[in-house]
């Protein structure tokens, strides 16, 4: 099967993070190999640009924990890549922001856990909110385009109006309001995080109204939690179609959470060129196109729209990555999703969150 060209690379520079958000989509068990060193990342960036990639998102974990971040940004810039820093903001003071801007960072996306410190710090599992406010100031002063990202879940979604106002007061050009996606740590905390149907309905109204009100000033993106949707979300434009992820240990993944799919073997940048992995590897080819599909997707007209949904979600919920995404109401497994929704819409679950842990250093 011939591969299209990829457009964007997600470079997960480290899984270490000063925050412990219970909704993190990082894997719950981390790779055991050492993190890539600077020269290896520089090679990844060059090979990515040569493959046709135009965007790189530096992410993690917390990318600022890499001391060589500015060097990597400069290398990306030199290869003509657009660079977006996806960060918690911790560690981004004035000097670092200027250094990164000088190296060529184009934009920064800062996550906030809530609109006020007490709740935000409880979710982050550490005192982070005030430091984020400083980071946002430093980013603006350095002339880096700013977008904010706030993850919505049962404990924050009712504060949507305040969250939107908060983002506007920070002069963000863009606000992403993404409901938790249930992978990694987020999956572990699924029943604690899923909002109720009522919460979702109110939030959708608030977001739609705010989009209009802030048009021209701040762009607002609101992503529904797919558990409440009729059809699944399209998997990043299709498996192995536009995106690739390189994790801290150099494994190359079709999507950031693909590591959770049992039985899938990933190639590593230390052993193979990126172009070979993109074109030839079985991890990229196994769900490319629609040959792999089973019914009901195989004969469904929507298969070109949503590509059968998310492979990671199918694997997480049914243990078979090749099944229809159970979020789809046409899926024979939809019951798996409905049972969870039923449970959380009855009782107000009050179980404690399981906070995200960091990788244990090998030496």
């Amino acid at each position, binding site marked *: 099967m011939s591969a299209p060209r990829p457009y964007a690379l997600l470079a997960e520079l480290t899984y270490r993070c000063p925050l412990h958000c219970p909704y993190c989509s990082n894997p719950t068990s981390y790779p055991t190999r050492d993190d890539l060193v600077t020269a290896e990342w520089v090679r990844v960036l060059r090979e990515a640009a*040569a493959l046709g990639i135009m*965007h790189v998102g530096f992410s993690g974990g917390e990318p600022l924990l890499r001391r060589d971040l500015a060097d990597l940004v400069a290398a990306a810039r030199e290869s003509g890549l657009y660079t*977006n820093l996806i960060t918690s903001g911790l560690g981004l003071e004035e000097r670092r922001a200027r250094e990164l801007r000088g190296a060529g960072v184009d934009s920064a*996306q800062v996550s906030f856990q809530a609109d006020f410190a007490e709740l935000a710090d409880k979710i982050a599992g550490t005192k982070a909110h005030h430091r984020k406010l400083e980071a946002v100031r430093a980013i603006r002063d350095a002339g880096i385009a700013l977008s904010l990202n706030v993850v919505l879940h049962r404990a924050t979604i009712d504060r949507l109006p305040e969250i939107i106002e908060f983002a506007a007061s920070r002069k963000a*050009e863009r606000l992403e309001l993404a409901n938790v996606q249930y992978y990694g740590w987020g999956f572990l905390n699924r029943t604690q995080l899923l909002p109720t149907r009522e919460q979702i309905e109110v939030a959708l109204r608030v977001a739609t109204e705010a989009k209009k009100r802030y048009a*021209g000033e701040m762009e607002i993106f609101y992503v529904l939690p797919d558990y409440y949707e009729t059809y699944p979300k399209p998997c990043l434009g299709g498996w192995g179609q536009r995106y690739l992820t390189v994790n801290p240990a150099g494994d190359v993944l079709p999507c950031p959470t693909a590591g959770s799919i049992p039985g899938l073997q990933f190639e590593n940048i230390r052993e193979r060129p990126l172009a070979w992995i993109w074109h030839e590897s079985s991890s990229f080819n196994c769900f490319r196109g629609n040959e792999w599909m089973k019914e009901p997707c195989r004969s469904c007209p929507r298969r070109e729209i949503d590509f059968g949904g998310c492979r990671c979600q199918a694997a997480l919920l049914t243990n078979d990555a090749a099944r229809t995404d159970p979020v789809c109401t046409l899926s024979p497994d939809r019951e798996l999703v409905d049972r969870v929704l039923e449970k959380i819409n009855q009782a107000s679950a009050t179980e404690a969150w399981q906070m995200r842990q960091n990788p244990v250093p090998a030496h």
Partner: protein
Amino acid sequence: MPNTEINPQSRPALAPKVRLQTDQVTGKTVLLYPEGLLQLNSTAQAVVSRCDGKISVDDILCSLGEEYEVGVETLRSDVSEIFSELHQRRLLVFNL
């Protein structure tokens, strides 16, 4: 709502989040921004490459007219359409 009436005296520039880049695969010019990219056709490319924050909308029209040897009036509607689309998508900013 964003004001789509563009002042002919304003001087358009790329928004801070936007970068103009040549696509190494297709050779085409694209605008890159955090959420994605926009491929420019040749007219849009000619327009955007003049948006340096120093030249006004009117002067851009004149300069295009000279380059393509057509009257400004013939160009006006195409060019305004490009400007208002890029304005609406917040890829260009217009300073007075």
